[in-house]
């Protein structure tokens, strides 16, 4: 079938760049989020409309335009983890950290979020602490493994 539609949803747009997403990830890794200033600079540098850059940033779950906690704890809440107690885990974490899911704690500045399946279903319930998968989590006493994991990260940072 010959081409019938010159389709903007076919990616026949002008200025496209496969480097955009990785540059955004870099910016977020440096600043913790993608600020307006950084995005304007990036758009100028890559000769892309700022609108396009912004469209991409706001589309993906892992990118953000506002600062969050120094660390992000994402609890998987998809069915395999769900039937293995992820709800209980979330509630206990909310109590322990004194925040609701979606919020950031003062003090240790950790953000608590739900996330979709992270592929650790055979070790449920699971979570991601920044880039690190945490698996087979104790739903009743999250404080223990959280402190431990946190200490591990901090060690690496120093």
């Amino acid at each position, binding site marked *: *079938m010959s*081409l*019938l*539609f010159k*389709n903007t*949803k*076919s*990616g*026949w*747009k002008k200025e*496209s*760049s*496969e*480097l*955009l*997403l*990785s540059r*955004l*990830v870099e910016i977020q890794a440096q600043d913790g989020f993608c600020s307006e200033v950084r995005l304007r600079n990036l758009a100028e540098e890559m000769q*892309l409309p700022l609108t*396009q850059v912004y*469209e*991409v940033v706001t*589309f*993906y*779950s*892992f*990118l953000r335009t506002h600062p969050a906690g120094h660390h992000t704890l994402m609890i998987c*809440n*998809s*069915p*395999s983890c*769900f*039937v*293995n107690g992820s709800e209980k885990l979330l509630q206990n974490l909310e109590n322990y950290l004194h925040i609701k899911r979606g919020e950031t704690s003062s003090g240790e500045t950790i953000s608590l979020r739900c*996330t*979709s*399946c*992270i*592929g*650790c*279903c*055979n*070790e*449920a319930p699971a979570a*991601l602490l920044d*880039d*690190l*998968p945490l698996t087979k989590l104790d739903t009743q006493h999250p404080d223990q493994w959280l402190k431990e994991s946190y200490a591990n990260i901090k060690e690496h940072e120093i």
Partner: protein
Amino acid sequence: MQILKNTKFKAFHKALSLSAEEVIEQVKTSGLTGRGGAHFPTGLKWQFIHKEKGPDKILICNADEGEPGTFKDRFIIRNNPELLIEGIAIAAYAIGANRGYIYLRAEYKNLRPHLEWAIKNHQNELAQIHFRLDIFMGQGAYICGDETAIMNSIEGYRGEPRSKPPYPAQLGLFGLPTCINNVTTLSNVPLIIDGDWSDFRLFSLSGNVSKPGVYELPPDSSAGDLLALGNPSKPIKALFFGCAGGCVPYDPKLKLSKEGVADQGAMIGSFAVIAVDEDQSIPAICRNIAEFFVHESCGGCTPCREGNVKVLNILNRLTSGDGIPEDIDRLIAWGNFIQDCAFCGLGQTSNNHVLSALTHFRKEFEELCKSSSMKPVTR
């Protein structure tokens, strides 16, 4: 396990001694179909791209394994990445691709070094077929597992799916002929070319089992075969095939094939099996799955974007005790509408769960509905 076999790139070199057409023929004869969930015949797909004029053609390895309950690709990347790279190389040769991407989901960032290591080890072989292979990281979007959304994502756009036609084989990434294959599909290829392959299914088993994991089983395996390996401690009530596949009541004799599962009104998809025991509430699981689809919908079409919220609202009411009998009919009406009218596979499978659950476990939903007839009904 065949999938852990390391052919040390013998299959690649064997493929190079054949013509591209011969390689494609072997893959076609093997009957290999896509392991990402769509089950498209791999050899046929390769033939489409092979037919297109070069010199620029693209191969994308879809490592955006996002279907809940699926972790077989992760297993392969972690334990046998070289097999995957070899499969990619053979595919590139067969279709005549000079550029390739492994689209790796953000959640698998800690596995990236495995891939980089495997690619580095085989730079020479990749150079031999003039194939440049890069890793492209996703950033948290289930929709990017869709083959056309993956292309938009790599191009630097929102990961919304595209209309088909045009098809990726003719007009894909950057407008070039493009082949998109799943990690497991590509990992089968060296085993096929090597000659020592017998068709197998890679199941991801999880849920209420004491031995969840990746299990390699023959194509005609039954649910009982799989659950025996999983060793549940309580009786299993239902099997959910990821979020998109829907559910069936547990029957050890059920054949875990595309047809066997389809006969029961579900889709086997990426061979993810989430076993759910008798203590679980099916409506609660459906509510959880509806939340997943609401979060992951790209928003590009009305039925999926708005309709799935309707479905979630109804399931929220049901599971918090405020259900009314009409809710069940509403769920069926919305579910069928969304499946028929949505733009892409995500929307079109986003209500398999509730529709199949209502077919097989309707009582559990009915029990959650108040029997009072006080509320007026509009639809």
